[in-house]
């Protein structure tokens, strides 16, 4: 066992703090896109999870996700309450950093993933049932998927599926859950006839900036060491984001005649999300290609949403779900051991089998998350009712669910 490396430890601690800021960043990213009456309700659905999911993580999440493997599907409960998770390193989870540092870094991922889902059912969900859903989703969906992909003994990991920082675990998982949510929770009142126009795009742009900033920790920190892999992931993250930004704006400019600010923000997030699973496995040029494809494909999906009739209010499916799928598959194309010897070779490096296992990962995670989330939402809807009453929906979540308003008259 190598001793603790102080540079690695400092880097992962800072990365954890960077990932933490992404959740408040996401809150304002989303809040800018809703109407004035739902700003605090939208912020709260992300912000509360910093508390609630962190608590779940200490007692169930970490041990279910990374605890000693049971049959490839889940961790056992021997690390309940972080029992045995100490300042000594764990050989598989960052051999040069304290085990506790890895646990808190991963905690931030567990927090932001259910927060991402909230964009799908924005402006119409009751707060209590939303909390019940988020906690149960973390326990029954996030923890198993995280175990399959990242934990020692997880069946997808054993199969050879690679996901550097969460294309499957975070982005496809939240996207598939969002898809389930929009099939269960009916569209907002007036959807399709009224204009749901973002109330404050500068707020959304500040959120985009915070997300982008935090993403360096999200992807870079996933190297679990301050080394060349982290540097490569950091660079790939930036290149993916900028390529997504530019591509989306150019495509929208051509398609609708105007380059929009919200398009720039959306393209950046699409690029960042899509490059996430690939960031530690690909060259800078591959990251640019991945970002460009993300901007193109996610734009096409979001722009064609209106024909389908589901109200994915803030485009979680079209940006994170699609980005997660595209990015995970592109790992199978662009990954190379020349960048990361601990990774794998993809199609362009002469190994078509990685693309097959990545596709299995997409299907397995997509199906499991969609089905489990759908059942969870149906059950909670039957028990408590997911949706706010019509008068509260008209009045807005801020006043109706929280008895406060974002902007005084």
């Amino acid at each position, binding site marked *: 066992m190598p001793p603790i490396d102080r540079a690695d430890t400092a880097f992962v601690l800072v990365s954890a703090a960077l990932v933490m800021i992404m959740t408040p960043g996401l809150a304002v990213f989303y809040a800018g896109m809703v109407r004035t009456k739902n700003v605090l309700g939208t912020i709260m659905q992300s912000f509360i999870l910093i508390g609630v999911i962190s608590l779940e993580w200490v007692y169930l999440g970490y041990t279910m996700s990374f605890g000693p493997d049971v049959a490839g599907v889940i961790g056992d409960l021997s690390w309940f309450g972080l029992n045995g998770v100490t300042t000594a390193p764990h050989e598989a989870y960052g051999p040069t950093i304290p085990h506790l540092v890895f646990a808190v870094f991963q905690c931030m991922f567990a927090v932001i993933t259910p927060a991402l889902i909230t964009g799908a059912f924005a402006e119409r969900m009751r707060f209590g049932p939303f909390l019940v859903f988020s906690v149960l989703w973390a326990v029954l969906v996030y923890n198993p998927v995280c175990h399959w992909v990242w934990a020692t003994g997880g069946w997808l990991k054993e199969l050879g599926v690679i996901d550097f920082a969460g294309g499957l675990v975070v982005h496809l998982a939240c996207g598939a859950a969002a898809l389930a949510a929009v099939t269960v929770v009916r569209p907002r009142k007036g959807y399709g006839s009224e204009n749901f126009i973002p109330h404050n795009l500068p707020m959304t742009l500040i959120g985009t900036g915070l997300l982008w900033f935090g993403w360096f920790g999200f992807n870079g920190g996933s190297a679990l060491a301050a080394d060349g892999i982290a540097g490569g992931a950091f660079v790939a993250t930036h290149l993916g984001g900028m390529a997504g930004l530019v591509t989306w704006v150019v495509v*929208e400019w051509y398609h609708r005649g105007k380059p929009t600010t*919200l398009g720039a923000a959306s393209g950046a997030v699409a690029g960042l999300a899509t490059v996430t699973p690939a960031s530690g496995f690909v060259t800078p040029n591959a990251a640019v290609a991945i970002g460009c494809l993300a901007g193109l494909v996610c734009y096409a999906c979001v*722009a064609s949403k209106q024909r389908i009739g589901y109200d994915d209010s803030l*485009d979680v499916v079209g940006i994170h779900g699609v980005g997660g799928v595209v990015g995970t598959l592109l790992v199978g194309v662009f990954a190379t051991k020349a960048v990361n010897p601990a990774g794998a070779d993809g199609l362009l490096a002469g190994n078509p089998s990685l693309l097959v296992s990545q596709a299995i990962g997409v299907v397995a995670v997509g199906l499991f998350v969609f089905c489990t989330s759908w059942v969870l939402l149906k059950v909670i809807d039957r028990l408590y009712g997911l949706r706010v009453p019509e008068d509260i929906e008209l009045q807005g979540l801020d006043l109706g669910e929280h008895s406060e308003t974002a902007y005084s008259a």
Partner: protein
Amino acid sequence: MKKIEAIIKPFKLDDVKKALSDIGITGMTVTEVKGHGRQKGHKEIYRGAEYQVDFLPKIKIEIIVETSMVDPVVGKIIESARTGKIGDGKIFVLPVEEVIRVRTGESGKDAI
């Protein structure tokens, strides 16, 4: 006494205010409003989707004047608020029964 209500384009407010002060009108009430006449609305684009926005931002000016001042005031507003393009706005003239100054209790034209 008459009340003159003028709906104008927001960027014309300063011109109108200056034109009115040139003929001695210094008091007015201004409100930010939304509406449309023949101009209809405009198009906005969010994430590749087009939205038709019907109500446009406008400014409503309210002025109370002696009846003899109606024509010059209306003339000055037209002169200063007109761009010649659709959406320049409208002017309404309404009768006013009484005006009272809160501070002194004066009424009628002395209170204007």
